[in-house]
């Protein structure tokens, strides 16, 4: 290959921009925009923006001391749970500070729903937390029923609880897989996806979809159970306990896994409540708050289950909590199948409902925590304000509290144990 003399070659247009920018900055007395590291161009290194910091927190995170540097765990990343950017300030291998930058998956669902009828809203909320779709639909359905003043029939409530608990089983199973994957174990994620596949085939028999189910309606559910669904449910139920135990056995007693999760990211109960962390993360820190027991909705008053907690508060406890909840959900599914009454599955509700003006708040227990919907109706066919509170969004605030002092390799492990899903975070 001929050697091109850097003096005579034609510069790339991008380089022309850079030359221009650097020249202008030199004229203005600013440092060049290229990496302040000088010769060594780290492609992930973040330059400190030359504008003044907008807030105190920005000032804090952009204050680089000797030996520290800012790196991105950027939006394109194999291990963040969706598109999220983590601005990490490290000193060598130790994380000093961390700042999540969100919004890469923001779709404006809340605003979109103001222009959609109430039934359409239930389809818009599906892809929020796309691993727990039934929960995403459950809360708005309850809120709209409160606004409209209709109670779904008993059978519909039982079917709702059934699919919701099935959803919880596979969502928690996937968390186990992601946690192992972020630590380098290649196999548990595939087992978790096999579990999910079985359940998703089950749910496709009842709702027609495999992922974004569009199953709930204001006043009930869309379809009744059918023979296909019941037969698959029976097959699934006879295998699931064995499968779950086989999958968890591979990780739970694994020395390497334990060494990487025990005493990592310990969150105390008080901190968790203050941070707004709910769901299995909160219960793993010892606080027995479960929306299904604290403020019962649907038919959870009629079902027998305890609120499980773990004493640790570390990543291992969060992992054990989810396994315990999988088993609890399977127990709940048994009770639901046992007690399911006959009857209609949807109240007679028109396609476009116009509830009287008012407000309603509905909170449910999603696999990530307390998922709630606050809906305001103005009497028209579209909701006036549709606000969702997503649990992963709030749980992400635990990251800057848990990470400092840990190694970079633990960032992904701790985040996987908090189990955020970016669809919910970014709405």
């Amino acid at each position, binding site marked *: 290959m001929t050697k091109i003399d850097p003096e005579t070659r034609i510069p790339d247009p991008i380089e*022309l921009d850079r030359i*221009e920018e650097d*020249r*202008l900055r030199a*004229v*203005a007395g600013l440092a060049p925009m290229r990496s302040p590291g000088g010769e060594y161009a780290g492609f992930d290194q973040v330059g400190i923006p030359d*504008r*003044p910091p*907008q*807030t*105190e*927190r*920005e000032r804090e995170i952009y204050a680089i001391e000797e030996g520290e540097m800012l790196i991105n765990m950027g939006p394109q990343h194999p291990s963040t749970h969706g598109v999220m950017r983590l601005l990490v300030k490290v000193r060598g291998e130790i994380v000093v500070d961390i700042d999540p930058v*969100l*919004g890469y998956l*923001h779709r*404006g669902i*809340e*605003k979109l729903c103001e222009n959609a009828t109430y039934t359409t809203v239930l389809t818009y909320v599906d892809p929020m937390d796309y691993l727990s779709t039934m929960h995403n639909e459950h809360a708005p359905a309850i809120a709209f029923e*409160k*606004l*409209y*003043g*209709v*109670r*779904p*029939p008993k059978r519909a409530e039982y079917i709702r609880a059934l699919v919701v608990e099935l959803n919880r089983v596979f969502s928690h199973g996937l968390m186990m897989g992601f946690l192992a994957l972020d630590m380098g174990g290649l196999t548990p994620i595939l087992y978790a996806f096999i579990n999910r596949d079985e359940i998703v085939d089950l749910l496709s028999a009842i709702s027609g979809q495999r992922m974004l189910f569009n199953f709930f309606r204001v006043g009930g559910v869309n379809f009744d159970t059918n023979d296909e669904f019941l037969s698959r449910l029976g097959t699934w139920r006879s295998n699931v306990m064995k499968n779950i135990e086989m999958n968890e056995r591979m990780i739970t007693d694994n020395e390497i896994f334990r060494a990487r999760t025990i005493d990592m990211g310990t969150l105390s109960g008080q*901190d968790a*409540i*203050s*941070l*707004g*962390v*709910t769901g299995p993360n909160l219960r793993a820190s010892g606080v027995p*708050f479960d929306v299904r027991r*604290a*403020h019962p909705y649907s038919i959870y008053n009629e079902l027998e289950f305890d609120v499980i907690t773990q004493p640790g508060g570390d990543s291992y406890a969060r992992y054990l909590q989810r396994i315990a909840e999988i088993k609890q959900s399977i127990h709940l599914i048994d009770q639901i199948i046992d007690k399911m009454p006959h009857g209609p599955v949807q*109240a*007679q509700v028109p396609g476009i409902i116009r*509830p*009287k*003006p*008012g*407000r*309603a*708040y509905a*909170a449910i227990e999603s696999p990530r925590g*307390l998922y*709630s919907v*606050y809906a*305001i109706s*103005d009497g028209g066919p579209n909701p006036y304000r549709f*606000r969702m*509170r997503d649990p992963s*969004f*709030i749980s992400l*605030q635990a990251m800057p*509290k848990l990470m400092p002092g840990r190694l970079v390799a633990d960032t992904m492990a701790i985040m996987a144990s908090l189990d955020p899903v970016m669809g919910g975070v*970014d*709405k």
Partner: protein
Amino acid sequence: MEHLRRPWPAAHALGRRRALTAPVAAGALVRLLAERLEVDLRHLWTDEDTVEYQVDAARAHDVLRTLRDDEDLAFFMLADAGAVDYGTGERFEVVYHLFSWKHPSWLRIRARVDRADPRVPTITDLWEGAMFHEREMYDMMGIVFEGNRDLRRIYMSPDYRSFPHRKDFVLPDDAADSAAAGVLPLERPETWDLTRFNQAPDVTFPPSDLREDAPAEAVEDGETLGDKSRPR
């Protein structure tokens, strides 16, 4: 269908007060709140599962502190903090939902915020987890939380100037036409220092036959630099 409807209507007109119609358990909470926080809270509504109060924005922080710290009230968990826009000329509302072990109902606190100057004291000192809620409310509605250490945009890019959830925000096509009322310096172009770009560069690019130099269009004062590609 009557057997499927609830025995009492669940809805009422926006902003109108209603008398107590709810079960006894909620009544205990209402009486307690009337006793402790009569000055600040105005009782609006009681439902089978929610008790609703209204408060002025300036008093919101103290009221929430009392609700959290008082032993009989003990609303330890902030379940949700969201914002509502009632239209141009009306007010904003910041709506807090709280939970307590001692009371079976959700407590909804609606804080009236002036739309022209939307300022609310922050509650991040009470609940750290309110930080993201407040950032989202700022990002989407433009409500400024005084005392918040990190009031940046969270979903939109840091130099985005409009507030999408407001009722006068037109759809994204015309985001440039929406009322731009950014608060942080990065969102206000009038604060940007552009003088350093006023010099003509030494590097002259060779004239391109393909590029036509479009004449600069005059922009009148007060007009946003919107998209001129179609008549509005």
